[in-house]
């Protein structure tokens, strides 16, 4: 589906931060990264490390304090506001709540760099606006006011606004931050579709690592001393994600790509069998046990085709449990 992917954006020793008067406060060491046409890129990093600042700088809303941002090989500084608005669109976490503004009017504002001095919507503009609205499947919402939309619908309308702006790159600061689970996956599905089938390069920040790992083509992992880029799997293999958690009691499970609290406090336990192993192991981990490779004196037998019970076998007795919940409660009482 993707056309030949060429590099559309590159960061060359980019320094980001704030300058107040003569003092410059650089947030991170010089960053190097790149993005290609149609890539879905997740920006990951702890709170306050500078994700938003990086995205704002990419959108031209903040001056770079050094280094270069190249869009199609041309320095961001050489673009006028209008020219940049034809290259990159931006959505922040700032919520637009304007009274009496219809979804159509909001999306129409995306045509700003394309319309004449008074902002007249020509036939072509109208078609592109309707096209953007139909892409987000909100055709019946055109005349509804933005202030009456749900969080998810409003975010979709904002995305339609960028679509109408018709930029190759979409920069989004936590596009799913304030959404419930259903709306969140709805938006993700939409973004994924836009990057894959429509060739949009989407750069978005998120705190949902699991989602980023499973969905994105590339991850820009921002650490205190570096920006590491690569496919999620590359970063997984190199153990880069571990750096995010080095100072906390959370560990990263390379095998599953999931996170768990460090669970070596209660001892280890052997699990026999194959049925429902994944979820049982998760529960055992959560209870504070690690899963032993070799048989321990107390062990769990998983449900199988013959019996539908979990069995907890200690030195003295074997007890059956109907659910993981009961098994874990019993396990907590057992001293290993």
């Amino acid at each position, binding site marked *: 589906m993707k056309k030949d992917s060429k590099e559309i954006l590159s960061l060359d020793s980019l320094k980001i931060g704030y300058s107040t008067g003569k003092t410059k406060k650089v947030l991170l060491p010089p960053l190097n990264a790149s993005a290609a046409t149609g890539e879905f890129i997740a920006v990951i990093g702890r709170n306050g490390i500078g994700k938003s600042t990086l995205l704002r700088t990419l959108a031209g809303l903040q001056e770079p304090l050094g280094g270069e941002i190249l869009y199609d090989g041309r320095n961001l500084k050489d673009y006028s506001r209008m020219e940049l608005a034809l290259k*990159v669109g*931006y959505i922040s976490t700032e919520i*637009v709540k304007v009274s*009496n503004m219809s979804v159509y009017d909001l999306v129409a*504002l995306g045509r*700003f760099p394309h319309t004449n001095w008074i902002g007249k919507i020509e036939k072509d503009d109208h078609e592109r606006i309707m096209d953007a609205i139909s892409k987000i499947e909100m*055709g019946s919402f055109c*005349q509804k006011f933005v202030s009456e939309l749900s969080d998810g619908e409003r975010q979709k309308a904002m995305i339609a606004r960028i679509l109408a702006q018709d930029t190759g790159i979409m920069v989004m600061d936590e596009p799913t931050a304030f959404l419930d689970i259903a709306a969140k996956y709805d938006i993700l599905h939409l973004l994924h579709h836009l990057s894959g089938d429509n060739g949009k390069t989407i750069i978005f920040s998120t705190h949902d690592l699991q989602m980023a790992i499973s969905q994105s083509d590339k991850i820009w992992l921002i650490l205190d001393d570096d920006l590491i880029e690569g496919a999620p799997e590359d970063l997984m293999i190199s153990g880069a994600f571990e750096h995010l958690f080095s100072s906390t009691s959370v560990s990263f499970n390379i095998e599953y790509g999931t996170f768990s609290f460090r669970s070596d406090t209660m001892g280890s336990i052997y699990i026999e069998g194959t049925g429902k192993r994944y979820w049982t192991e998760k529960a055992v981990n959560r209870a504070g046990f690690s899963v032993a490779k070799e048989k321990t004196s107390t062990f769990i037998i998983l449900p199988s085709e013959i019996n539908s019970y979990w069995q907890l076998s200690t030195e003295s007795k074997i007890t059956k449990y109907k659910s993981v919940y009961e098994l874990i409660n019993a396990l907590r009482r057992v001293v290993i």
Partner: protein
Amino acid sequence: MKSGIEKNKNVQNKSVRKARLIFATLLALVVVFFILDIFFGSVNIKASEVISAIFRHTGNNYETIILKFRLPKAITALIVGVALSLSGLQMQTVFRNPMAGPYVLGISSGASLGVAFVILGFSSNITPESLNGLGNWILVAASWLGAGAVMLLIMAISSRVKDIMTILILGIMLASGISAIVTIMQYFSNETMLKAYVIWTMGSLGNLTSSQLNVLLISIIAGVTMSLFSSKMLNALLLGENYAASIGLNVGFARSVIFICTSILAGSVTAFCGPIGFIGIAVPHMARIMFKTSDHKILLPGTILLGGVVMLISDIISQLPGSESILPVNAVTSLIGIPVVIWVILNRRKYSVSF
């Protein structure tokens, strides 16, 4: 999907038709109230006398009243309504504050400070009678500067303080501070200056000389023309500065244009008619309620027409048709405007974020 788009086009057309209908009605109302404003006054003149005074040049007292007094006053009312409403609309969008207006934020006070400097500060030779030709331009320019200075101050504050109430309170503080300065200036000025200034502060729609009306007319035409060029920028600014910049707006340039435009509109009116309250804040909301849109391509002309209508009505009411007394027009505009402002506050519990 095709039919969905078609259907939408119909809805779109319907709303365009509705807007056109409202525009036509407003235009008709402007004409009607303009004529009524000429017909009604503290002196009872029969309708037939009014018509013959305008068209037949009878040369009697009625003609003097109609052509030298009522006609200029109706024109002034129209201009003042347009200018104040327009500056209010622009300020509300630029500050993203539904409670912004030239009067509430102290812009009118700033303009009156400029006028006070000219009349009380520099020359004792300037009196209302001598304020012709160049003097009028000096007066109006001082008024622009005063309005601009306060605008600049409010802009600087509102870029740091986002809370609407805080900005409003600061506006009131500024207005009080300015009136204190003017009081001090009055204290140190001589009798002639003082008299000239006091007459100016009582200024109403009816006291303009023809040369003053010319200056006002030219200034407001300039301001309105500029504002028509700003409709696209204003639409973008609705989204807030960041989004506006991200869709290609040069925010600094846009702010400067609107800033100059507002200072000219509010400053010129204040220079010749004194501070007139609550038109600037109320009329844009009335236009929003009427047109149910946030699009400035519609709101700008809508506010212009509606501002004219409201000010003409205020002027007619202030004449108290049928009686010989006249109310200060400022009192009438306040009584019309304040209920609208209260309605806006009550109807938007979350108005601090929902603009």
